[in-house]
C-alpha cells in the first residue's frame, strides 16, 4: 500500500516475514530482472505526463518540428511563453470557475453527508435500514440518467448554466458515496461516548458538532480529498450545465480540442495547469486518498 508503508512503519514489520535461505537466494537471482522490469514499467507510467509537461514548455514551432524528447539535448528551448499566452487568453477565469465549483461542492457534500451519516449510524427512525440500502444502490447510478431531467428542471427555475446549478448537481451525485463512507466510519465510534454526551443532556446538534465530527476527521479528510478531485476533474457535468461564462478548465480545454494540432500550446499548458493542484493534493494527502478509495470500493 502506498501510504501504509510510509505512515505506519509497524505495519511493514508485521508484513515482512522471516524468509528462509532458499527464498532469499531465489529473490536475489530474480531480483535483477525484476528491477529492470519495474524501472521500465515506471518509465512507461511516467513518460506520458512528462511529455505533456515538456510540450507545454516549448514553443509551438519547436513542438511542430520535433518530438519533446529532444529536450534532453536542447534544454535551452524551454520557455514559459505558452503559459503567458494561456493566462492572457482568459484561462484564468475558468481556473477560478473550477475553484468556485469545487470548493463549495466539497464543503456541502461533507456537511450534508455527515449529518445524514450520523442519523444513519446513531439514530433510530422507521425505514432506516431500507433507506440506507437505497443509498448503497445509488452509489453507482450513471450521471447520464439525470442530465436531461435536471437540465429541464434547471431551465424551469432559471439556474441552467450557472455555477450553483453545477454545484448542486455535483453535491447530489457525491452524496451516496459520502454518506456510505461516513456512516461506515461513524458506526465505529464507541457508543459510550455518545451515551455519555446524551446523558449530560447535550443536544443532537451539539453531539454532532462536538463529538462525531471531530472523531470522524480521518474519514472526512478522505472524503474531502476524493470529492475535491472528483469535482475538479469533472468534464461531463460542466459540459452540460456550465455556460461559457461559468465554465471550468475542463470544459474550456475541451472547446479547444477540435483543432488539436494547431492548439497544442494552449491545450498542453492548460491541461498541465489543471492537473497541478490535483497532483499537489494527491502527494500531500495520498494517505487519505488511498483510505477513501479503500473504504469506497471494498464494501
Amino acid at each position, binding site marked *: 500500500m502506498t*501510504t501504509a508503508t510510509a505512515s505506519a512503519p509497524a505495519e511493514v514489520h508485521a508484513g515482512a516475514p522471516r524468509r528462509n535461505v532458499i527464498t532469499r537466494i531465489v529473490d536475489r537471482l530474480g531480483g535483477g530482472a525484476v528491477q529492470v522490469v519495474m524501472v521500465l514499467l515506471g518509465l512507461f507510467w511516467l513518460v506520458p505526463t512528462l511529455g505533456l509537461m515538456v510540450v507545454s514548455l516549448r514553443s509551438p514551432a519547436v513542438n511542430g518540428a520535433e518530438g519533446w524528447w529532444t529536450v534532453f539535448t536542447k534544454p535551452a528551448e524551454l520557455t514559459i511563453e505558452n503559459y503567458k499566452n494561456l493566462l492572457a487568453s482568459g484561462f484564468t477565469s475558468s481556473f477560478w470557475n473550477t475553484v468556485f465549483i469545487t470548493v463549495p461542492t466539497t464543503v456541502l457534500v461533507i456537511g450534508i453527508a455527515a449529518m445524514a451519516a450520523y442519523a*444513519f449510524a446513531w439514530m433510530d427512525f422507521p425505514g432506516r435500514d431500507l433507506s440506507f440500502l437505497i443509498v448503497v444502490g445509488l452509489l453507482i447510478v450513471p450521471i447520464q440518467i439525470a442530465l436531461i431531467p435536471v437540465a429541464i428542471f434547471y431551465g424551469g427555475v432559471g439556474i441552467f448554466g450557472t455555477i450553483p446549478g453545477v454545484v448542486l448537481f455535483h453535491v447530489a451525485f457525491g452524496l451516496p458515496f459520502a454518506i456510505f463512507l461516513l456512516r461506515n466510519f461513524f458506526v465505529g465510534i464507541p457508543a459510550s461516548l455518545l451515551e455519555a454526551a446524551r446523558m449530560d443532556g447535550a443536544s443532537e446538534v451539539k453531539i454532532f458538532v462536538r463529538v462525531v465530527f471531530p472523531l470522524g476527521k480521518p474519514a472526512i479528510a478522505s472524503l474531502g480529498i476524493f470529492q475535491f478531485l472528483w469535482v475538479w476533474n469533472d468534464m461531463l457535468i460542466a459540459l452540460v450545465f456550465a455556460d461559457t461564462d461559468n465554465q471550468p478548465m475542463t470544459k474550456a480545454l475541451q472547446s479547444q480540442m477540435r483543432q488539436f494540432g494547431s492548439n497544442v500550446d494552449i491545450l498542453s499548458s492548460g491541461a498541465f495547469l489543471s492537473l497541478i493542484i490535483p497532483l499537489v493534493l494527491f502527494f500531500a494527502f495520498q494517505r487519505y486518498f488511498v483510505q477513501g478509495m479503500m473504504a469506497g470500493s471494498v464494501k
Partner: protein
Amino acid sequence: MTEKVDGPKAPREDDTSRGPASGPAETPRTQRRLGPSPTVAIAFLLPAALLLGIWVVYPIVYSIFRSLFDATGSGFVGLGNYATIFTDSGMLTTIRNNLIWVVVAPIVVTTLGLIFAVLTERIKWATAFKLIVFMPMAVSLMAAGVIFRLVYDEDPGKGVANAILTTVHDTFSSSQGYPDARPREGDQSGVVADKGAIVTKQPVQSGQPVLIPIVGIKPNIMPSAAQPAKAAPPGNALSGTVWFDFTPGGGGKNGTPDATEKGLPGMTVEAVKDGQVAGTATTADDGSFRFDGLAAGSYVVRLPQSNFEASYHGLTWLGPTLITPAIIGAFVWVWAGFAMVLIAAGLAAIPRDSLEAARIDGATEWQVFRRITVPLLSPVLLVVFVTMIINTLKVFDLVFIIAPPSVQPQSNVVALEMWRVSFGGGNNQGLGSALAIFLLILVLPFMIMNIRRFRREDT
C-alpha cells in the same frame, strides 16, 4: 486474517464495524437505537434526502417515461427508442465498442494490478513505484486525454508511442527505406536487379570502386541529409558509391555520378562471397561505402531487399481500426494504479505463515502464487474487476477527448452517445433518455450485487 495486519487501510471483512477509537468492547447494535426521536433524525436527513430525491431518484423515474416519447416529447413511441438502439448501425457499432471495453479493459487492468502488486513486494523503491503508477488517478480524464493525444501522434518524430515502435523496429531491421527504387540497368551498368535485391554483375575486388546507379526514387523519399554523390576515395578497401543516377532538369551521363546527382544515405551494402555475407557496410550521406577489414579477394556487392521496403512509421493509433484499443490503453494507464493499490493491500493481509508452509513443503514460487495467493486474493480481485466493469460502462471523457472528430463514430460508446444525442447536436431527448436507461440497466446487476454484499457484511 484480520488480526495479521493492523491498520485502518487494509480491506477487511469487518472494516465497517470499526472506527478509529473502537473501544475494547463493541456495544451491541441494539443499544444504539436508544437515540433521539425520529423527528430529529428526519431533520438530519432532510437535506440529503431532498438532494437525492430531486437530482437522482426523480430523474430516474422521469427518464423512464421520457424514453417512451419521441425527440420533441410530444409523440408516444412506446419502445421505439429502444428499438433504435438495437437496430441503427451506428448504435450497433457503439454497443460493439462497449462490449470490447467491458471484455478487455477490466481483465487487463486487474491482471496488471496483480502483477504490479506482486512485483512491488520485491523491490526496495516500492513506494516510489506505487506513487508513479497511482498518480494518473489524480489527473483529470480530460488531461489524460490530452496526454494520450500527444502519445499517439502518428508522426514518429512527435508521438512517443510510434517513436518507440519505430526505434524497436529499426533496431531489428535497419532500413532507410527506398521503396520502388531499382538499378539503372543496361550494358554500360555494372549492376542488375536480383530477387528484390541489387547485385553487381561481376565479382569485384578492392581498389576498384563499385558504382551502383539507382533510379525510381520519388522526391519525397529522398532523405534531406543526402549530399552530392562522390566516388569513394581510392584505397585498399573494397569501396564504392550508391547514388541516385538522375540529374534534375535533364542532362548528365547515365552510370556516372554527375556533380548534381545525390548519394543515397543509409543504404545497407553487403559483400557476398560464395553465397555468404562476408561484410556489411552502410552508405554515408554522399552515398559512398567502404568495407573495412575484409579479406582480399573477389566479392559480389549486394544491396539487400530490406533497403527497398517502405520504412516503418509505426501504427495509426488514432485511425478507425486501432482507436478503441488505443483508448483502452489510456484507460489502463489511468486505472492500473487503483488496481495495484487495492490488490497490494489484499496481499499484505494474506497470512505469511501459509505461504511459508507451502514453500517449506517444496512448492515453487509459481505454485504458491497460483494455489495460495490468488485464491486468497479473490475477494479483492473481484472488487477491482467489478469496479472496472462499472467504470468501462461509464467511460466518456477519454473517448471524447482522444478520438479525433473523424473517428468518433468508430470509437463511440453508450455514455458518450447519450450526451451526443441529447446535447451534442443530436437534440433527441427521447433517444437520449432511452440510452440513459439502457446504461442504468447495464449497471443494475452491480447495484444489486453491492446491496446484497452490504447486507451480508453489515449484519
